[in-house]
């Protein structure tokens, strides 16, 4: 009896771990490949319609075009990061891509222990000679989205919230607020931003990247306070907000990371625009470097995605949501940001952190 029971429990645990831990080995290129790429995701799953998914798109593109082999390991919790990275090191993977700010500590430790392995980390600066940092000036794109939101609101209130208050999340909100302020200054308007304040480094956060129900509730609370544009910076949590906005029927949602009219197409009638963070471009570019025969290590170099190199951007604005003049303004604003003539608030934010 006792024995049976422990067998049963162990079996249960083994089955669960099988499903949880190893995630999924994706495509391997088939025939002889020039290099192998392993990607370790953050929590939220490979199909989070957000950064895991976008980064993987870059690997997939490389599998198709560059004849490399690639696979990913999903992390279900923070303790999986190191385990997953180790697994790729054991397989002699040529490039290990770790996705997300939260993986920085483990990536740094592993990279220091394995100086011969190439790493790239999304959303973090370089962590050593063998690590390429892939960062994004999302504040620039968020700024444009803020400008659009301010032009589209009818109630004079726009809102944004985040998953957890970390710089890679806040950067969207910082740019957003600055964009709204810029609209106010240019057009003599007084649109109010709910949910974020750069000067205070404080705002609305749900505290996780999983609870879609929280996303819905927060969006409803914003709408109850009169906001009619909501930008959720919280991965899949934002999809709950999109549902609330769609049911309300008189508000807009702003997508983040990818173009939500494509990646979350059931909400496309309420997507005002999306703040694009083209992680796929960055990952693809990194893989290209690694397979170059003359490649001699990253040398601690960083990739920074900007409006200028199309590393960040905004998706087409929903037709009829704003006047044509606003779209023209956006062109000018983009040029000014690239030229460094407009302050996106990022320096203020960084100064506030110290």
């Amino acid at each position: 009896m006792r024995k049976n029971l422990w067998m049963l429990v162990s079996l249960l645990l083994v089955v669960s771990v099988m499903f949880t831990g190893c995630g999924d080995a994706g495509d391997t290129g088939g025939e002889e490949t020039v290099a192998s790429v392993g990607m370790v995701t953050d929590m939220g799953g490979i199909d989070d319609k957000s950064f895991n998914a976008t980064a993987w798109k870059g690997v997939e593109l490389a599998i198709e075009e560059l004849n490399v082999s690639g696979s990913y390991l999903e992390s279900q919790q923070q303790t999986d990061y190191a385990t997953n990275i180790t697994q790729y090191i054991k397989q002699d993977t040529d490039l290990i891509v770790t996705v997300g700010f939260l993986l920085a500590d483990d990536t740094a430790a592993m990279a220091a222990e394995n100086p011969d392995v190439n790493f790239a980390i999304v959303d973090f600066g370089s962590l050593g000679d063998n690590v390429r940092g892939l960062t994004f000036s999302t504040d620039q794109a968020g700024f444009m989205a803020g400008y659009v939101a301010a032009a589209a609101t009818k109630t004079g209130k726009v809102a944004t919230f985040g998953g957890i208050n970390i710089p890679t999340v806040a950067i969207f909100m910082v740019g957003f607020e600055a964009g709204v302020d810029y609209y106010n200054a240019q057009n003599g308007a007084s649109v109010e931003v709910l949910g974020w304040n750069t000067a205070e480094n404080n705002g609305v956060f749900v505290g996780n990247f999983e609870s879609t129900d929280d996303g819905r509730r927060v969006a409803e609370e914003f709408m109850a306070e009169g906001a009619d544009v909501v930008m959720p910076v919280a991965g899949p949590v934002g999809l709950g907000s999109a549902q609330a906005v769609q049911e309300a029927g008189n508000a807009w949602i702003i997508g983040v990371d990818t173009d939500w009219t494509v990646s979350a197409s059931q909400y496309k009638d309420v997507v005002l625009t999306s703040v694009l963070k083209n992680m796929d471009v960055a990952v693809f570019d990194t893989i290209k470097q690694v397979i170059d025969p003359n490649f001699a290590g990253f040398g601690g170099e960083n990739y920074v995605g900007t409006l200028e190199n199309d590393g960040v951007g905004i998706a087409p604005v929903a037709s009829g949501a704003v006047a044509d003049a606003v779209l023209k303004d956006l062109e000018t604003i983009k040029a000014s940001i690239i030229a460094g003539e407009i302050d996106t608030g990022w320096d203020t934010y960084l100064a506030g952190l110290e």
Partner: protein
Amino acid sequence: MDTILNQEKRKARTMGIIFLVFALAVLLLFLPGTTGEQQTTFTFTATKVEALALPDLIFSTQMGLYVLVVVIVFLGAWQLAKGFPNQNLILGVVAGLFVLAFLAWAARDKSMNLTGMLESTLLRSMPILLAALSGVMCERSGVVNIGIEGMMLAGAFLSALIGSVTGSQWWGLLAALAGGGLMAALLAVLAINYKVDQIVAGTAITILATGLTSYFSSRYLQTNAALNTPPTFRPLQIPLLGRIPVVGPAFFNHTFVVYLAFFLVFAIQFMLYQTRWGLRTRAVGEHPRAADTLGIKVFRTRYINVIIGGMVAGLSGAYLVLSSVARFDELMSAGKGYIGMAAMIFGNWNPIGAFGSSLIFGFADSLQTKLAILQVPIPSQFLLMAPYLVTMIVLAGVVGQSRPPAADGAPYEKE
């Protein structure tokens, strides 16, 4: 006798002093931050439905705070002088007035929608309430169910999948009940027949459900939108009641699942305390040996309760999908099952108590968001702690008085 009387008196006096401390807190914490010109605006607009409109309530923040202080001081003085018959009720009222003072202070020079806040409190408490009810069902019969979180995930996953495939939210709901029930049956086998440590078995079930749902979700649901777009329940406004300002939108304009949850609170309360089944359940949870001697089938009673409890947990998952966000995502229950267990304990293993405590957790959640929107100068990390702080304060303060079923967590061995 004399000492008991003295104790009573001392308790009454302490309570009165606590009331005065609340008043003092308002005076010291909130009033200094206000100026004479500041005004607080409370609005009552319903966002989603037509209800009879109530005009905005605009008042001078300072005046409002003084009025509240006076009322609290009066209650405290009355308590010290004469004493209220129901002290705990008055304590609740004083705490409520204190929260109101806090809101008036937080919304100075700004406006706050109280109807929206009430509505959001209720909706945020729903998954917690259903999880708590699930816990009540199981633990009243003596089985600790720490796998509620996993059962919620199973319910949420199946409701999304089956709802999408059949195109009907009703099938989705049934599938969620079945999924939760099935997970619970597994718990029942392990905990009742095999007498596995119930905490271990429950944890294993959560790990299993997390693994399975995450795997199948990323494999099929996320890659194929047709499998993850279930139809949802729409809010049904109850005629007349639904049009009452404030209360109407908050309580009488909800989906079928929410009404079902209300119904379950009272149904389970009634069943537990007024029916033969309830008496048996409680007997099995308190003293299974005695119940067995009297011919009550301990194993069968526990099986039935655990499986029904699992179905209620499945319903909680179905709420998240079919009544809220219309899709499944990995780990979407995000710990609400565990908060539900805290609500059950705080509610003294009693459905109506669990309802009350779930509302407090829902309120803490909603307040946290409101305060962040109002830019109260408290870092978001601290605000996010609010529900957990409430849990701890409540558990520390109340658990002394709440008592689990005597045989809770103990496997029953037949002789």
